[in-house]
């Protein structure tokens, strides 16, 4: 297909695996918007995106789907409209709700990979637990100001337990915010991990965290 001609890093067989993949993006903010865009352009077959929010003016500095036209509109609905224009081959399911203990059993099921694009640490821990129960790999990313982190969590790894202290819900982003450039970078790294999980490529960031400091230009892989 002409559309995927420049996806030259993938064999035809790999491209078929990608087209038959079913992934879930939890969160449609700074990270989720870019992740959705990239996974759709690559050619992932089925994408579910979940977020209970509407766009606000404060999202405009960094969220790709936030425009002056989408303020006040439902995030996942705008995501669906965008993806229909970018790649109508993608079957997209939009869930306008925040992931929580009441709905997680219904939503997180039978995905090849789940992608963490959340901004709540407590929901991340809940998601890690559910992904373990359902035997689904989870790709984690988080951002704060100049800083970001990415890791890939296979069922049983429980990596997030070592990244966040108990009972914490927010990080330093509450003080320093998030600029335009960190979400796109961390989203890209999460997408490349997703593709490697789907294609069973080696060298995943498993039990390792890629820690990014753009202020001091440091990229470090830490054993975790």
């Amino acid at each position, binding site marked *: 297909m002409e559309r995927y001609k420049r996806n030259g890093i993938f064999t035809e067989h790999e491209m078929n695996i990608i087209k038959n993949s079913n992934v879930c993006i939890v969160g449609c903010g700074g990270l989720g918007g870019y992740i959705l865009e990239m996974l759709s352009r690559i050619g992932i077959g089925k994408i579910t995106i979940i977020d209970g929010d509407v766009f606000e003016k404060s999202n405009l500095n960094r969220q790709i789907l936030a425009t002056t036209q989408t303020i006040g509109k439902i995030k996942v609905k705008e995501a669906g409209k965008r993806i229909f224009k970018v790649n109508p081959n993608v079957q997209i399911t939009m869930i306008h709700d925040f992931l929580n203990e009441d709905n997680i059993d219904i939503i997180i099921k039978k995905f090849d990979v789940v992608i963490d694009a*959340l901004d709540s640490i407590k929901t991340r821990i809940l998601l890690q637990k559910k992904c373990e129960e359902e035997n689904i790999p989870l790709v984690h990313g988080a951002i704060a100001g100049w800083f970001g982190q990415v890791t890939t969590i296979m069922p049983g790894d429980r990596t997030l337990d070592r*990244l966040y202290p108990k009972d914490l819900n927010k990080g330093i982003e509450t003080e320093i915010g998030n600029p335009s450039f960190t979400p796109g970078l961390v989203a890209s790294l999460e997408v490349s991990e997703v593709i490697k999980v789907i294609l069973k490529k080696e060298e995943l960031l498993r039990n390792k965290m890629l820690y990014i400091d753009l202020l001091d230009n440091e990229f470090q892989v830490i054993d975790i």
Partner: protein
Amino acid sequence: MKVEVRLFATFREGRGKKIYVEMDQPTPIKLLESIGILEEDVAILLINGRDGKFDQEINDGDYLSVFPPVGGG
């Protein structure tokens, strides 16, 4: 004993990337408090690059790495 403390992200503000702390019978919690970092503000504590505990005994030549929580999306 002189212990190297490697700082990351916002912990570097006003402190730099690395601090050497001179202390007898040091533990991570005492070392961090001496440079104004509280246990509750630390997300990841590594000792010699491995998962560490705040009350762990520190030996000569050990180094600490501390990261604040990054949680935005």
